[in-house]
C-alpha cells in the first residue's frame, strides 16, 4: 500500500511523470521523504494530508521548483532538472496556492500570459493563441469578466483567472496546489470537472486537495501524506478508510458508501465533549 508506484498504483501504460524515492531535506528536517509516484496519461491524482504533511513541497519537487536532496523526478524519462526553464513551461503548468493577482492587468491579459511559453514555437500562431485564451475563459466561465481589471475581482474569481491562465498554457502536465481555494461549492465542482477533462484530453493532473470528498469523487488515485511520508496510495476506496483517516488526521472519521454513486463518502464524527472541558 505504501508506494504510489508499482503494482496497483502503476496503472499507467504510458508514463508521463515519475517520482522515485524523492526526498527533500532542509536544516536536518525531512519535509518529504522517500515518495514514489507515477502519474500516467489521462490520470488525475489527488494529494491529501493534514497541514504540514509535505504536500506543497512534493508539488514543488514535481514542478522542478525544488531540487530533490535524494531521489529523482522524471518527465517522460528525462530528469526534470535537465530540462530548461523554457522547455519545462511547455510541458507543465503550475497553479500556485496564492497567485499574486492584485494587478491592474485585465483578465484577458493575464490569461494571455499563459501563451508566453509558446511565443517562439514554430507551430504556434496568433490565431492559436486567441483560440486557446477564448477556450480557457469559457471553460472556467469567466468570459464575461475578460475586460475587467483582475485586481478588482473576488478571491474565487481570481482563482478561476489563474486556472484559465494555466489551461491556456496547454501543457500535458498540470500541477495544482489547492485549485478550489476561495471558490464556492458550485465552482469547486466546475473546477474539478475541468481538471478531469484536462486529464482526459491532454495528459495528467496532480492536485493538492483538502476536501476529502471532492478528491474521492474526482481522483483516479489518491496519495495520502503525513509528516512527509506516504501513508497510503491507491484508488479512493482503498485509501479513504475510517482507520487510515482517523489515524492520519487525528480526528475521528467514518467512511460510508456514497448513497448516490460508487465510492466512499467521508464523514467526520463529532468528538464527545469530555468532562474536563465541560
Amino acid at each position, binding site marked *: 500500500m505504501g508506494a504510489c508506484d508499482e503494482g496497483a498504483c502503476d496503472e499507467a501504460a504510458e508514463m508521463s511523470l515519475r517520482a522515485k524515492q524523492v526526498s527533500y531535506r532542509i536544516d536536518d528536517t525531512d519535509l518529504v521523504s522517500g515518495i514514489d509516484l507515477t502519474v500516467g496519461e489521462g490520470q488525475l491524482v489527488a494529494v491529501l494530508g493534514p497541514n504540514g504533511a509535505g504536500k506543497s513541497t512534493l508539488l514543488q519537487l514535481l514542478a522542478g521548483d525544488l531540487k530533490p536532496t535524494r531521489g529523482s523526478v522524471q518527465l517522460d524519462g528525462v530528469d526534470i532538472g535537465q530540462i530548461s526553464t523554457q*522547455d519545462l513551461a*511547455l510541458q507543465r503548468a503550475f497553479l500556485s496556492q496564492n497567485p*499574486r493577482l492584485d*494587478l491592474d*492587468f*485585465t483578465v484577458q491579459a493575464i490569461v494571455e*500570459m499563459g501563451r508566453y511559453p509558446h*511565443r517562439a514555437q514554430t507551430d504556434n500562431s496568433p490565431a492559436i493563441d486567441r483560440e486557446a485564451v477564448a477556450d480557457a475563459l469559457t471553460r472556467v466561465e469567466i468570459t464575461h469578466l475578460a475586460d475587467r481589471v483582475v485586481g478588482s475581482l473576488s478571491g474565487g474569481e481570481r482563482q478561476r483567472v489563474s486556472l484559465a491562465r494555466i489551461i491556456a498554457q496547454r501543457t500535458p502536465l498540470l500541477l495544482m496546489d489547492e485549485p478550489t481555494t476561495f471558490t464556492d461549492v458550485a465552482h469547486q465542482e466546475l473546477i474539478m470537472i475541468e481538471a478531469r477533462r484536462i486529464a482526459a484530453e491532454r495528459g495528467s493532473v496532480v492536485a493538492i486537495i483538502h476536501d476529502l470528498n471532492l478528491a474521492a469523487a474526482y481522483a483516479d488515485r489518491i496519495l495520502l501524506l503525513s509528516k512527509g511520508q506516504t501513508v497510503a496510495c491507491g484508488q479512493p476506496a482503498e485509501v479513504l478508510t475510517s482507520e487510515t483517516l482517523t489515524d492520519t488526521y487525528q480526528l475521528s472519521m467514518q467512511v460510508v458508501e456514497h448513497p448516490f454513486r460508487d465510492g466512499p463518502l467521508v464523514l467526520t464524527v463529532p468528538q464527545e465533549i469530555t468532562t474536563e472541558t465541560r
Partner: protein
Amino acid sequence: MSRNRLILIGLAFLLIVVGVGSLLVGAASLGPSQILRVGLDRLGFTTDVEPQADSVLVGIRLPRTLATAFVGYGLGVVGASLQGVFRNPLADSHLLGISPAAGLGALVGYALTPSGATSWQTPVIIVICSALSGTAFSLYLGRLTSDAGRLSLIGAALSFGATAWLGAIVLVWDNSRVPTLLFWIFGGLTGATWRSLYVVAPVIVLAVFAQQRTARTLDILALGEVEARHLGVPVEAARRRVLGAAGVAIGAAVAMAGVVGFIGLVAPNLVRRALGPAHQDLLIGSGLVGAVLLLVADSAARTVANPTEIPVGLLTGMIGAPIMAWILIRPGFHGRVR
C-alpha cells in the same frame, strides 16, 4: 484605433510641439518666422536668412533639442523598465545609484582622455566609460537581492555614496574646473553638440530597442518570480538583460547630460494610469513623457535666470520632488507596481 494608441500619438504630437518650442528659447531671441525661414533655407528654398540665426538654430539649438529628447526618452524608458523588473514604482536610475555610478565612470573617462584627443575621441571615450560603469553597477545591483524594498534602500545608500564621491573627486582633482564639471552632478545639456549627439543617440536608440523587446517578459514578471519561472522566464537572465540595457542607456544619457534625476521616476508613474500596466505601451509612453518633461525643464533652465543657466538636474529635482511626493501621498498608491 485603441485608446492607448491615441494617447501615444497625442504624446508624440506633444513632444513635437514642445521640441519646436524649445528651439525658440535661449539667450538670442529668435521668433517662429526666423525658424521657419532657416528651415526653408536649409531645405533649398532661398530666403533672406541672417547667417547668425542659422548658426544659432542649426549649430546650437537643434542639436541641444534633439539631445534633450533622446536623453529624456531614454531616462523615461529605463525608469519604466526598472520599475517593472523590480516591481517597485519608486525604482529609478538615480535613486538606485545607476546614474551616479555612470557619472563616476564618465568622470574617469574624462580624466583618461589624452590631451591630444580629437573632438571625436573625447565623447566616445566618455560614453564607453560611463556606459561600462553604469552597466556594471546595475548588474551588481540586480545580483544583490530581488527584494524590491530592500533594493531601493541599498540603491539609495549607494547612490548617496556615488554622488558624494563624484563631488569630492571634482573638488580635489582640479579646483578650477569645478564650475564646468558641476554639471556631472547636477546635470545639464550645455555640452550638447552634433558630434556628441552622433555618439550618444545611437547608443540610446539601441538600448531603448533592447528594453522594448523585453516588454512582454516584464509583464510576466509582474506575476512574481515563481510564476514567471513557471511560464518559462529564466528570471535571472531576464533581469540581467533588462539591467544591462538600462545601464547602457543611462551611461549614454549621463555622458551627454550628467546626472538628471526624477525623469525616470516620474514619467512612468504619470502615464501608467492612462496606459495601463502592459509594458509594450508603457515603455513608449514613459519615453515620450520623459522627453517632453526634460525638454520643458531644459527650456526653463535656459530662461528662468537668464543669462545664467540653471543646471537642468536641479530643475527636474524642483519639479520632480513634489510630483513624487504627490505620487506617494495619493490614495491610489500601493507601494508596488500593479
